[in-house]
């Protein structure tokens, strides 16, 4: 989820990220008003066509859907039981279409461009005293450090297992907290060393 971007030069890659996000948003709203299964099926085909246009192998499409298989099946069964076949079909088509479209947008857009698009979208919030560039900065830091924190957690878990401690969330949480706090100190120092203080009063 954090690193879907596939470098490429297709038309979809070159499209401004803001435009892609707006299309995604509008489709998300629009699709919920469509109930005709043929229109829904057609939309799905269009999205699949866009995947091909982006030069991403269709196998990848299945790979992205696989982890969602269970949820989609459960949802499908529930819908069939509660609302019948037709409606279950429509709901699933809608969801799959949207998931594929959203994945496609993330796969063809750099995170940095998405973040700056969000930064621009958030600029009206300036009137409430918010600083969009700070929001963007925090988002980037988060994207950078979530995987690192996960790495640390894995390390601690491995070390504990090596010493015979099996899964215990408390035994994981405390040392993780200590590590993360220490890491935060180092990161703060690195940010200063790398010139963040230059920006402090901007």
């Amino acid at each position, binding site marked *: 989820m*954090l*690193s879907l*971007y596939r*470098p490429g030069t297709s038309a979809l890659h070159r499209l401004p990220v803001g435009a892609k996000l707006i299309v995604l948003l509008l489709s998300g709203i629009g699709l919920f008003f469509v109930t005709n299964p043929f229109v829904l099926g057609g939309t799905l085909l269009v999205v699949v066509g866009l995947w091909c246009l982006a030069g991403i192998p269709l196998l990848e499409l299945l790979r992205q859907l696989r982890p969602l298989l269970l949820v989609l099946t459960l949802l499908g069964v529930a819908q069939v039981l509660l609302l019948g076949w037709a409606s279950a079909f429509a709901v699933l088509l809608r969801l799959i279409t949207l998931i594929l479209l959203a994945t496609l947008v993330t796969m063809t857009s*750099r*995170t*940095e461009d998405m973040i700056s698009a969000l930064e621009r979208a958030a600029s009206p919030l300036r009137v409430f005293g918010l600083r969009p560039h700070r929001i963007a900065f925090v988002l*980037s*830091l988060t*994207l*950078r450090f979530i*995987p*690192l924190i996960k*790495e640390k957690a894995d390390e601690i878990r491995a070390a504990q297992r090596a010493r015979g401690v099996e899964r215990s969330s408390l035994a994981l949480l405390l040392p993780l907290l200590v590590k993360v706090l220490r*890491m935060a100190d*180092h*990161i703060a*120092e*690195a*940010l*200063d*060393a*790398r*010139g*963040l*203080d*230059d*920006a402090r009063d*901007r």
Partner: protein
Amino acid sequence: MFLFEDVEHGYDERRVLHGISVELTERRIAVIGANGSGKSTFARLLNGLQVPTAGRVLVDGLDTRTEGRAVRRKVGFVFQDPDVQIVMPTVAEDVAFGLKHRGLSKKDIAARVAGVLAEHGLTELRDRPAHLLSGGEKQRLAIAAVLALEPECVVFDEPTTMLDLRNKRRTTKVIAELPHQVVVVSHDLDLLSDFDRVLVFDGGRIVEDSAPARAIPAYLDLMAPC
């Protein structure tokens, strides 16, 4: 360029550096010594990440206590663990990070990032998430990102400790070829064998300060098991 005047440093009440007075003008300076002897503290004093608890540190005449920001513009710092030094999610963004805060235009930033990536063999990795890089690639990125800011001097705190032999040699070569003044903290004697000056630390004091030919044997003596 660096002038230490009677510098002491302590964390809380504990003093870890005592009476340091040196002037560092040579182009390549190494700092060696036992674990806990105060090398990293000394390194952090060089760019004002730490300020002395007594005495002064001057960088080109600027006091790190009052001119920290200007000092950090002159003096880049490469940390031992690139994981905490890389702060942006992808390679290119990380190189652009410091530049953005310098207020350069988008176009200038893009040009400079492209140049720096090419110079350090990172162009292929430009959109790679930082957490998927190998240790050697991370260190290369950390160094590239610091050099992108065009500092006059670069301080390295154990730049090769976490690297395999190939990356160690690579980094050693990169450091050797830098035109900048460099101060390198290291336990790696190969790295500093052709440096201009070596400071040996022990217990928070400089116990030897000379060319490698003299300083390295002194350090080995110091490290000899009793």
